[in-house]
């Protein structure tokens, strides 16, 4: 087992272990910080898949943006009377049953399907120039729509979150 494989499994363990903490931890702040490590682990997976641009984007957008937003949400929506920020769970057994059935089915499908795998892995080129060309080429319309969606969503979020002044 060479070094790259060992590092791969270390990152897999980090990802899955911290995701398990996110799912079961009763403390919301702890769950949010565990999500940080999960997102880091996923970024490492992107790097292992030679998606360098995506790995950096994952760090910038998820770790730098979405996670901070989530932590803001945690801090703003909990009664600060009690020091510990806890949350409960409901229907644990039923949910575990459903999730185990779905996960088992998906894992079985992944395991038993003969996937179409390239005999020769593609040459390792820098991803960013290629992705930029595709954004301005075959994916131009989705790209423009996505930018409009982002603009609308952010203006809408600012409008919704603003406290109404009804004096």
């Amino acid at each position, binding site marked *: *087992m060479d070094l790259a*494989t060992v590092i*791969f499994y270390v990152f*897999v363990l980090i*990802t*899955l272990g911290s*995701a*398990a903490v*996110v*799912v079961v931890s009763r403390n*919301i702040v702890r769950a949010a910080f565990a*999500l940080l490590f*999960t997102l880091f682990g*996923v970024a490492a*997976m*992107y790097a*292992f*898949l*030679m*998606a360098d641009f*995506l790995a950096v*984007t*994952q760090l910038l*957008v998820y770790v730098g*943006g*979405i996670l901070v*937003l*989530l932590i803001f*949400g945690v801090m*703003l*929506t909990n*009664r600060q009377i009690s020091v510990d920020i806890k*949350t*409960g*769970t*409901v229907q644990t057994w*039923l*949910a575990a049953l459903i*999730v185990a059935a*779905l*996960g088992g089915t*998906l*894992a079985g499908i992944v395991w038993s399907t003969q*996937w*179409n795998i390239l005999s020769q*892995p*593609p040459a390792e080129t820098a*991803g960013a120039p290629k*992705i930029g060309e*595709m*954004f301005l080429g075959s*994916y131009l319309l989705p790209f423009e729509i*996505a930018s409009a*969606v982002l603009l609308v*969503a952010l203006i809408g*979020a*600012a409008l*919704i*979150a603003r*406290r109404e002044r009804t004096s």
Partner: protein
Amino acid sequence: MNMDDILTWLEHPGLTHFLLLSVLLFSMGLYAILTRKNAIMVLMGIELMLNASGINFIAFGRYSTGTFDGQVITVFVIILAAAEAAIALAIVLNIYQTFNTVNVDEINKLKD
């Protein structure tokens, strides 16, 4: 399948490794959505599921098609995740101001 086959499989990370990882992440995200009371924890579950889908797209792009389409789609997934998180947190903040709680099993009125 004997022990040696499993050991060789473990020593060479390939497409199925990434797919199984994303299956596990997706299942955990679904579990969080189903069991959590707090709306923000439900959002975290959704983020886990979106990340699982991203791993799937990029893994297929690298091992199965050899093109960059999977990575482009994943960029769109990240864009939509960012928009979704912003909108959802704005709504959660409003719900908190109205109901003084963000537990999704206690919010069952459209207006008070």
